[in-house]
């Protein structure tokens, strides 16, 4: 009995985790229109999905938004982390703490305050407002990821490069950035995923001119669950898996 208890427990935990995903994937191949009976194997919902132009458009919008938000926040975040790491100045601890405040504060608070800000400055809600909002909530994660890597960074490496004739700029390009690259990639991927599946903040700051995937799905399921959404979910799942494997592969390679 003692041998079976932990196994049963673990099985239950993993069933809990994976049954919903499995149901989604299986029913994405379901011929039947309803979610509760099995009508045989079919790719019709995938077809329907790709014929749904609004959906495909929203998908590209989301990808483009996630890509740009992750890239911008990685650039800003990496420079912030470097500044926090490299220079000693008054109020550094406070600045560090303020990053965590943004990270820990409820998303709804950020959403409302961003909306209020955009309305205040009279900004049109659309791609730019979404981008600004996404960069805002991705930034602390990037800074913290890069800072963690920098804290283990050997301070003698930049000195060694300078000693061997590299200017500060060349040293940054040939030594500093390659060494912290895994952290930059990890930060970027984190930002990308955060941006891709954000609903709360996006709901507040998006406009009709730029529809993104999570909001599109959300509005679709409000009027009843369409099997197309299953197909979309399965595709997103595959996409996330590829990203995960890619990031792990990069990390492993850099650790070699």
């Amino acid at each position: 009995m003692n041998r079976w208890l932990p196994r049963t427990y673990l099985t239950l935990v993993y069933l809990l985790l994976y049954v919903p995903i499995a149901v989604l994937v299986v029913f994405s191949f379901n011929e039947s229109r309803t979610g509760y009976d099995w009508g045989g194997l079919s790719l019709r919902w995938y077809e329907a999905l790709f014929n749904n132009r609004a959906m495909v458009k929203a998908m590209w919008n989301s990808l483009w938004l996630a890509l740009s938000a992750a890239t911008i926040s990685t650039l800003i975040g990496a420079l912030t982390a470097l500044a926090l790491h490299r220079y000693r100045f008054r109020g550094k601890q406070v600045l560090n703490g303020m990053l965590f405040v943004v990270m820990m504060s409820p998303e709804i608070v950020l959403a409302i305050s961003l909306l209020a800000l955009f309305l205040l400055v009279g900004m049109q809600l659309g791609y730019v407002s979404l981008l600004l909002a996404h960069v805002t909530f991705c930034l602390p994660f990037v800074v913290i990821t890069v800072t963690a890597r920098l804290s283990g960074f050997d301070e003698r490496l930049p000195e060694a490069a300078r000693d061997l004739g590299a200017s500060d700029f060349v040293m940054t390009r040939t030594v500093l950035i390659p060494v912290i690259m895994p952290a930059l990639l990890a930060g970027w991927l984190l930002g990308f995923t955060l941006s891709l599946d954000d609903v709360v903040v996006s709901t507040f700051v998006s406009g009709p001119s730029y529809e993104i995937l999570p909001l599109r799905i959300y509005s679709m399921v409000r009027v009843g669950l369409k099997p197309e959404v299953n197909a979309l979910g399965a595709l997103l799942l595959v996409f996330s898996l590829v990203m995960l494997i890619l990031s792990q592969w990069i990390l492993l390679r850099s650790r070699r």
Partner: protein
Amino acid sequence: MNQTLLSLRALSKQFDGKSVLDSLDLDIYDGEFLTLLGPSGCGKTTLLRLMAGFEHPDKGSITLAGDDLTNTAPEHRPLNTVFQNYALFPHMSVFDNVAYGLKMEKRPKEEIRQRVDEALAMVQLEEYAGRKPHQLSGGQQQRVAIARAVVKRPKVLLLDEPLSALDYKLRRTMQVELKRLQRELGITFIFVTHDQEEALSMSDRVVVLKEGVIQQLGTPREVYERPANLFTARFVGETNFFPGRVDGADGEDTISVNVLGLKRSFRKPDFQVAEGQELHVLLRPEDIRVLAPESTDGVPGKVVERNYKGSTLDSVIHLEDGTEVLASEFFDEDDPAFDYRLGEPVRVSWVDGWEWLLPQENGLAQGAIADA
């Protein structure tokens, strides 16, 4: 030889208001192996970093063969550094690490290849060119760091405790290897260490530093046999400090000193002596002779510790007045009197002429010195 290459003048450096170097002057000769020796916090690493250009002096100047380097950025100084933990670029192969400095000089590819191969051959790592630093042992990483620094043919090689991370045996091998490299390359080596044994065995000259001030500058032999002050005597090797009192001059160049109740005649020291003056008589453990109790020479005491060290036999002897004496004797199997047992009474003497005299220093109690 003995032509000044690197000249440090009145160098001062403070960190957070605390003085690390205080108006330090030092001339370093072309082609010499100079060691900066001192306990941690003595300013030796700061001094090296000032020469490399990683720190800027508050005052003073650094001149290399007539060129003022004080305000030159590290990348423009013809000096290279071997770092304590090697600081190899982890993302580059051994070859690329060594080639880095030459690439910065924008040398042609063919020249880089050839010079890197030469440098790697010099440290016997030709076969490891394609490896990453973490695939090498500590000693191999150390050699890559040396190759990377010397491939640029610097005028001066700065070495910041480069052997401290290696185990004893490897350290010994690397000491010999470094010395060989220095001879072959003819480059000036400035070597930082806190290990006095290392300093003595490798250097042409040793700089003993304490709290940012040079205590002594001299050949290893001078530093060991004729320490300039109590700090040097205590830091470099082990020493017995016996209290002595000047009885007066007893010849042209000699003075009579009462030490441990014995009347001895010593060479006149460099410093002024007056009758009745207290001074320190320094004797290295290997200068001490342990005699049989019935001997007429020496001071009585008893053996409290015997340590077999392989080539020598080290003993601690307590004199009757409580003074502790360290003695280190080479084995002489023909000498029947050699082996004393613990607690056995003996007499302590030393080889005449091997003693060294130092004056009393202010602020140091006589008793405190004896057991240092």
